[in-house]
């Protein structure tokens, strides 16, 4: 959707959107016809509004949260790829990895 539709959907002013974009909280696609927003950008916008309105988080706080949320999702995606890759291995390889993850170091008395 275009910029106007995006602002109408979230009921936000141009100045608010400019802050979001300059902070990198929302990164629209830039095309010849102007900015293009995806459904994911709407959902991000709602999260930003929830943070500011419902939770009373201020601008530096929103910046911090969005940064950590993005780190969290990248980490989740990476972890999902890794577990998917492990799941595609033969069962003996999976067993080896599992036993490595649940390894208990044996302590010996001196």
């Amino acid at each position, binding site marked *: 959707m275009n910029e106007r539709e995006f602002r109408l959907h979230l009921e936000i002013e141009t100045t608010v959107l400019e802050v979001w974009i300059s902070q990198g909280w929302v990164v629209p696609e830039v095309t010849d016809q102007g900015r293009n927003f995806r*459904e994911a950008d709407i959902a991000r916008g709602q999260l930003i509004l929830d943070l500011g309105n419902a939770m009373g988080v201020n601008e530096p706080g929103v910046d911090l949260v969005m940064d950590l949320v*993005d*780190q969290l*999702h*990248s980490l989740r995606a990476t972890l999902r790829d890794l577990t998917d890759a492990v799941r595609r291995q033969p069962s003996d390889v999976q067993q080896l990895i599992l036993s490595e993850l649940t390894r208990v170091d044996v302590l010996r008395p001196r």
Partner: protein
Amino acid sequence: MSRDPYEVLGVKRDAPQKDIQSAYRKLAKKLHPDLNPGDKQAEDKFKEVSAAYGIVGDEEKRVRFDRGEIDSSGAEQAPRNYYRDYAAKEGQRGPYQNTGGFADFGDADDMFSSFFSRRSRGQSQMQGQDRQYSMEVDFLDAINGAKKQISLPDGPALDVQIPPGTRDGQTLRLKGKGDPGFNGGPAGDALISVHVRPHRFYTRDGDDIRLELPISLTEAVLGGKIRVPTPSGAVTVTLQPNSNTGKVLRLKGKGAPVRGKDNGDAYVSLKIVLPDTPDPELTRFVSEWEAGKTQDPRKTMGG
């Protein structure tokens, strides 16, 4: 019937408006689905808390609720999508990737390090991700080069030029055929790892080709011109008389092509093959052949 909004927010019925707001904010921070991406129940809990605050968070509505004019189901929230649903679909791609939390996983020379370190948010233009593919090609196509049409799982058909001399496991890079870039950034590349199918009688040894060539007893004893197949076409080779099994002929330049260098060679290992069915004439000759009876081909093996 929904739960009592005061109970949901954990406040007394006569709590001041300010306390209701701070109770709600505290719960919202704890329960927001985007701040709990792995918690499936977070959405329902957050919905319930938001609905409760929708009534008693508004002074006017709170008065009407207390009077019994509206009930707690009056503030149903419109269904909405949370960012976590999209973030999960985007996976490793998209403009919001941020590996700041784990880009240090794996040492620099670790094969996993590039898997963990991807690019971060805030860049206005970004190149799309590279995509990994693999494909099988016939032995001769890999040696001689070929044009293959493949279709990417979620993309159009694509012409791939297999360069002559391609080795098993070699990676071909198709520029710009990976994921699209962001904000006009260039697309990533498609990286295709090539697996070469084994051939019926050729094997590859570096840039050289090896093959075992069956020859008849007559050809072995008398020698003469024979046709030898090579990946680039059959050639005529003159066989010396008395050419034994295991003798190796080198056909210069008949191996795999090498960019910027001379071609590899073909090594032809001879193998004498008797007639498929016993030949009475041959049997008679050999049974009367004295030198054949005294020959001991295993004398170097001891025992």
